[in-house]
């Protein structure tokens, strides 16, 4: 396993100068690359390194850093190794190259990411809607979309539970404790 990993890291690094690797103590390797490198590194991994199986494409929203992290997870049946290829893209103008010519099924993943995060895959040909229908709000999986607020506003909640009380508030009321404002964020 160690030799295989070293070999892969060497070859990737020699082909893709921008790749930053990270090794794990189980059968996993990570490569961070620039977003322009994505199609070529995936193509290389699939055709040259035998990572034939695309396990997953996912996206993590780092709202504070104003970035999306798109992660491609590949699996090699021959080397029994997971490879993660990750890249960061600008959250306000999320654009990434389409890769469904490398793996046909990537099309579905990209449709989902497009709908849920608003990432545009250049050259993606697919129907506009995937899971949602007539959706008018922002892409819902973005972290700044508040599903609780939306659900409370849109859907009806059955009444009859308004008499619920907060345990801490009840005790505060009973004892006359004065909780300062700066402490309130530490309530459960």
């Amino acid at each position: 396993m160690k030799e295989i990993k070293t070999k892969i890291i060497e070859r990737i690094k020699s082909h893709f100068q921008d790749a930053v690797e990270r090794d794990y103590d189980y059968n996993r390797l990570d490569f961070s690359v620039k977003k322009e490198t994505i199609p070529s590194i995936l193509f290389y991994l699939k055709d040259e390194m035998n990572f034939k199986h695309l396990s997953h494409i996912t996206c993590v929203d780092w709202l504070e850093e104003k970035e999306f992290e798109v992660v491609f997870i590949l699996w090699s049946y021959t080397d029994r190794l997971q490879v993660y290829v990750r890249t960061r893209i600008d959250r306000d103008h999320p654009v990434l190259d389409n890769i469904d010519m490398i793996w046909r099924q990537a099309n579905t993943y990209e449709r989902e990411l497009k709908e849920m995060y608003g990432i545009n895959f250049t050259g993606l040909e697919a129907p506009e809607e995937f899971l949602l229908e007539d959706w008018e709000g922002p892409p819902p999986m973005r972290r700044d979309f508040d599903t609780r607020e939306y659900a409370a506003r849109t859907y009806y909640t059955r009444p009859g539970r308004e008499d619920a009380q907060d345990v801490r508030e009840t005790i505060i009321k009973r004892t006359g404790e004065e909780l300062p404002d700066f402490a309130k964020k530490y309530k459960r």
Partner: protein
Amino acid sequence: MSFFDLKGTLKPLTALKQFGRKPHTLKDVPYVTREAADRYRGFHYNDLEQCIGCGNCATICQNQAIDMVPVEGIEGKKGDSGLRPRVDNGRCCWCGLCVDVCPTGSLSLTKDYLYVSEDPNSFLWMPGVDNPQGKERISFFSTEETSLNDFARIPMPELEGMERVKSFAEVVLGYNEEQARAEASRCISCGLCTEACPEHMHIPEYINAIARANDADAVRIIYDNNPLPEMCGKVCTRRCEDVCAIAHRGEPIAIRWLKRYATETVDNADLIKEIVNPEIKEPNGFKVGIVGAGPSGLTVAYYLALRGFDCTIYEAHAKAGGMTMYGIPKYRFPEESLDKQIEYIEKVGVKINFNTKVGKDISFREIYDTHDAVFVGVGFPKPWTLGVEGENLKGSIQAVNFLYEINNGKRVDLGDKVIVIGGGNVAIDAARVSRRLGADVTILYRRRVQDMPADWEEIEGAEEEGVHIVPQAIPVKFHGDEKGHVISVEYVMAEMVPDERGGRPKPVPIEGSNKTIEATAVLGAIGQQGDYSFLEEEFAEKIKIERGRFVVNEIQQTSDPKIFAGGDAANRTADAISAIADGYRAVKGIEAMLVKKDEGNVD
């Protein structure tokens, strides 16, 4: 494959061999309710007696299916919010997480699963109230093993028992960061503890701040209503831990040690000032005189100073802190800890006149006349005498006086066989200090060990250090030698007789069970009382005192509206946190009285 496949046509017909067999259809369903498995997760049942209304079930419920609501017949008390869970079955997903996080184990799921109705509003149930029969049907419950609560406390690093007696070094070493985070993470943030705390400190909030690695915020929250947290972090009687929700099935959260951890992370007064950073209001011109720099007096001074009052403390001794300075041994509460806090209190503008005994160096009258309000926090300086023959022999000392001498840095010669009489914290302190002076120590206590009012950790600590405890022993006589020095103590064993009126059992001496124990010194520690000789006659008449304590109203005001009182001299619990609570109440009282009255005049 031919058009007609004979085998493929006939083989399925072998199904006919099942013909005439007993079907496994459940014919009774739906007319008879079928019994579910022994571990089935069905409707909730709540044991209302066991439940403490901590609301942890409502917190864990990801569906917000559980509301905490008041129930008729259940009153809130210390350690019980008085609320009980109500389940919205239009939300519940029968996951049972609420059961797994219930700290008391009162909530469980039953085998009942059948409810059908045409009314969508009929799915709100109060487990235990609406289904009392559920008690017999409990199927999914939590035990200490399966519960998700963390019942084991992170052990506090301590000096080893025999190592401790060699010096007055602090016994408890304090949590490091990792331990504190882990301990704080055990807390379920219910807040039941805040009710048991006389001062109602914001316990869940500062524990949460520690758990979220924000110690500075924790310190700020702590200082919101306690100016002596490091002292409380070390020697508080921690009534909060008695009612901790986790304590029902495990060890309570180490609230005291966590407070200690938070305050110890700030190592000097300047840093406290920087972190706490309180807003000091413009001077409002009112002057408040405070008698005694004990916990209650310091609290009054600190918070009034923050509110713009001019505060002056009159303290008879050379150092502030009162009993916490002179009564608590240094292995529990080192002097530097106290100094740091006093320094900080002085930094916010409190003036302390040391070595100024009211009644001697300055008259109470003068303080009364020159200030707009007076707070009396004089404590209980005078020990009770035992009332035993031979008490006045040489070598028979009051434990409080003994501790005072030791804390003042003096040496006291006790010999090598010390008898301590009493079971409170003072008795244990005296015993453990005597051990550190090299004596063999025996504690004689009237009742059983579990009846001792002292902190259980202190009792354990004493035992670890080799203090011998003789319970149910009542001293009857001290024997002296020809020089008038005590040589032995005669005591009688007692049996515990249950109190008819429901009080705690009483010790009754057993005839003829007298025993004698050798002694070079006897330390009496059966309690203290007030000493109000500093009050001039006119005040002594005016201020109502009952059973040795000032009579005060809910804002700590005595019968003279200008005089407020607090601490041991005004409350029955006689501990530092109660004194701080008294002080905090008095602050609000004094502010209300002076500022509000003033505003009233302007209008």
